[in-house]
């Protein structure tokens, strides 16, 4: 399975829902729902996840369309950044006292 939750053979497929809470923010995953097709998924998402003004924009995507990293490969997949401190401004302490740097 490509994403948790997708179970083959359901009458209506599973969709993942992303909501932009307000302008200037990213869409954030809020949960999932079932719908017969993309059009209805969007409407169902509006009815289920924005009853209290939670959003100004909604994305829906079929759960099967999401490709995820493998949690068992966590070490190998996410190890590389560790130790590359030079990617962070904090690493450069000699310039710390210099204004506007």
């Amino acid at each position: 399975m490509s994403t948790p939750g997708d179970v083959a053979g359901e009458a209506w497929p599973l969709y993942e829902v992303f909501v932009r809470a307000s302008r200037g923010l990213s869409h954030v995953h809020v949960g999932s729902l079932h719908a017969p097709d993309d059009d209805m998924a969007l409407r169902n998402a509006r009815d289920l996840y924005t009853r209290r003004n939670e959003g100004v924009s909604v994305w829906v995507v079929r759960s099967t369309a999401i490709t995820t990293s493998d949690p068992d490969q966590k070490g190998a997949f996410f190890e590389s950044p560790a130790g590359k401190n030079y990617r962070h401004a904090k690493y450069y302490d000699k310039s710390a006292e210099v204004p506007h740097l």
Partner: protein
Amino acid sequence: MTLTHGSSATSAPATGADEAELQARFDALIEADQRIEPRDWMPDAYRKTLIRQISQHAHSEIIGMQPEGNWISRAPSLKRKAILMAKVQDEAGHGLYLYSAAQTLGISRDEMTEQLIESRARYSSIFNYPTPTWADMGAIGWLVDGAAICNQVPLCRASYGPYGRAMVRICKEESFHQRQGFEILLELSQGTPEQHRMAQEAVDRWYWPSLMMFGPPDDESPNSAQSMAWKIKRFSNDELRQRFVGMLVPQAEVLGLTLPDPNLRWNEDAEQWDMSEIDWTEFHEVLAGRGPANAQRIQHRRDAHEQGAWVREAAAAYAEKQAARDRAAA
């Protein structure tokens, strides 16, 4: 172990040394108060416990729509009608959030629905009690939702990520449920003598069942210790029940209503509420499906599901035709 990253089939079952290492990693995450996420390895028993608990919780929300839905058509003012409709609708929403969370553990909603309508799944026995008067809308909000919130707030920190996130959303939305119930009772209590009597009788009906919602006493609750170790559950049944009673006592005074337990008093020495023995025989009767409304609740759900089948099939068939049309056009 796969040689490539990205999308892959579900990890093969781990064996031997592998499993010990995975178990150690899982234990360390729990110990560190980290969350377990859907594709992480987890012990089978943990997965099963969660599926059982989350799906039961979802079923409870869905069945719980009925005792209150019963009064939407007869709500005594348009404002109360709107509030009640919004509340019952919220419960459908909460059921959906929870089914979503359960689905991340590998069980489909269709399967959970089948379990419910074939009476193979449990739901909170409280919803098997009938709602003969409008005051029951108040008592359910104040006592049943109150007890539910007490139970649910700690679940926001449950170790399984999707469950905790669903509970955060639910707790936020439920904050109005208890308040509206309290206000219904307050209006009735301060209304005509007949309204006041209606309110007191509803509190008498729902008080004990709401205390039973916290589950059996700690020394008779076989699954509790494991759930607490896994940090799915964070307080014992009796701890939460005590806490709940402590909140009710001053609220009942504001309402001008009596809690139906003559032995209820604060015990200074033991730092706890003394109360009468709960009649668990009734609880077990209701739990075993012999509650007054059990058959009716399940039948209602089954009817909705079966009578909706042709609609669900129609929508799926339409989607399939549209997709075929799009493929042909491409």
